[in-house]
């Protein structure tokens, strides 16, 4: 079986995440960045499935130069190889353009039995890309999956929304987005870290995918950010130590401020 994992290189959630004041894109240079934590679950699940029933795990990333670090992390976690789509024209690409590029990269790599993704990126966080990739590839899509097994060309598992939980079954190939409840991503061993150094990472550009520069980036975007303003940071307020009266003082605070 051949699994492709779509994984994104994102600014760390604890770093000073911000927007470029000129074009309102997410700042991706000079900021601590990493393989999106929510995509680690997809990498982990792909590696577990390959450990159980064999097959390769290809990681596909679209991102700036630094995304090579995220590719390496996925390889350390057990992926077989990586494809990194890197192109200056990609700056400003939105969900639709990202899906166009990722689907083309999956196609160029020879397709997949299973395409695994995270439930949402930790920066843009729209959760739109996976279903859009499925549309481009003409494949069925299952989102918010927190249990997943594959046997005999069929994927079975469970998914959960706000309204219900359901068990499902889908014949492969398919695109599946997984949540952070599906597994516990591994911390790579020293041996795995050394082995990853020898694994192939192919860097490709838009021309390799037959995509014109104006289909992506700002030119191809179907959405635009008009302004991005930092909210005033919350500051800490009154702190009281409980000497038996903490509960009463809390209620007094709520009443005094007409909150209850």
């Amino acid at each position: 079986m051949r699994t492709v994992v779509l994984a994104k290189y994102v600014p760390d959630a604890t770093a000073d995440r911000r927007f470029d004041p000129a074009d309102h894109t997410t700042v991706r240079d000079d900021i601590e960045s990493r393989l999106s934590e929510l995509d680690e679950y997809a990498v982990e699940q792909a590696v577990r499935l390959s450990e159980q029933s064999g097959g390769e795990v290809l990681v596909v990333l679209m991102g700036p130069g630094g995304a090579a670090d995220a590719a390496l992390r996925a390889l350390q976690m057990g992926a077989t190889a990586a494809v990194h789509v890197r192109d200056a024209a990609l700056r400003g690409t939105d969900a639709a353009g990202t899906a166009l590029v990722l689907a083309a990269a999956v196609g160029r790599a020879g397709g997949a039995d299973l395409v695994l993704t995270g439930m949402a990126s930790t920066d843009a966080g729209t959760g739109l890309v996976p279903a859009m990739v499925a549309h481009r590839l003409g494949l069925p899509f299952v989102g918010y999956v927190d249990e997943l097994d594959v046997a005999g060309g069929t994927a079975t598992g469970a998914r959960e929304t706000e309204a219900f939980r359901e068990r499902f079954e889908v014949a492969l190939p398919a695109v599946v987005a997984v949540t952070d409840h599906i597994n516990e991503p591994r911390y790579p061993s020293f041996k795995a870290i050394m082995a990853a150094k020898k694994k192939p990472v192919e860097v490709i550009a838009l021309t390799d995918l037959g995509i014109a520069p104006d289909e992506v980036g700002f030119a191809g975007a179907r959405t635009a950010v008009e302004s991005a303003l930092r909210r005033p940071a919350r500051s800490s307020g009154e702190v009281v130590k409980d000497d038996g009266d903490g509960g009463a003082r809390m209620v007094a605070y709520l009443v005094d401020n007409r909150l209850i």
Partner: protein
Amino acid sequence: MSEVLVLAQRDGDEIRRATAETVALARAFGPPALVVAGPWNDGVARSAAAAGPEKVYALSGLPDDSVSALAVAESLADLAARSVAVLLPSTREGKEVAAHLAARLESGVVTDAVRLEPDAEGRPVATQSVFAGTFTVRSRVTRGVPVVTVKPGAAEPGPATEPVVVPLAATPSPVATAVRVLDRSVRPKGDRPQLTEAEIVVSGGRGTAGDFSAVEALADALGAAVGASRAAVDSGWYPHAYQVGQTGVTVSPQVYLACGISGAIQHLAGMQTAKTIVAVNKDPEAPIMAVADFAVVGDLHAVLPKATEEIVARRR
């Protein structure tokens, strides 16, 4: 004037308050037409009319034994192409329908709008809260029919109407029925207010040590909803549907009470836009203290029951 499609969020036969809010919001752009998917009966009809649309599309024929987001999107594609905008709930399902629909319409999508206003030309401009609530972004769809998912609390619901009901039959493609549902358990409707719609939310974390009774008692005294941190959910102490944060729900209540929750960035992502934050935590150095308007340093198992008693006493 062409209509604005609004996809209803239903809870059994009831249309949720958030849907009525979105219908009210839609009026700024055109006559709202509410799409209600699934079984249609008098109860649903009443609830749909109460949400205040001009028209209702009753979408039937969705395959029960299949994941339905794509089938809903396919059924709406033609109507949507003729609409001024499509507004959907910012739920997991709503966002899936939005993605499938936008892919077919070749439209842009804006997710998680907390506000939606017309610009000078009357086109929708959305306000979003991003990067764990540290930035406010205004964005718009620039290509195709705007598709926007809207969060609860974006507007006040308008008055009930007497909408025309137009039946709509689903025509799912083979891809839409490819994902077979083997069984489904619908979440029972609880007695407490909806987490995303509540004015007050009382949440418990690892500090509860698995005993949510003090959190629930305080919530009930306040008429509040109950939430939980991921640590509490991962430990199996509270169902996932109540998880607040990056991979749970985001809430924006008047008051958020975090009890035994440290305030990790992923948790803050789900509640940092609350008007007032109150924390109860043993550790004065916990990150939640830095964002709390009022904090009690102490054991929640002692503080919460006292607070509950005090509220009950004041009510007498």
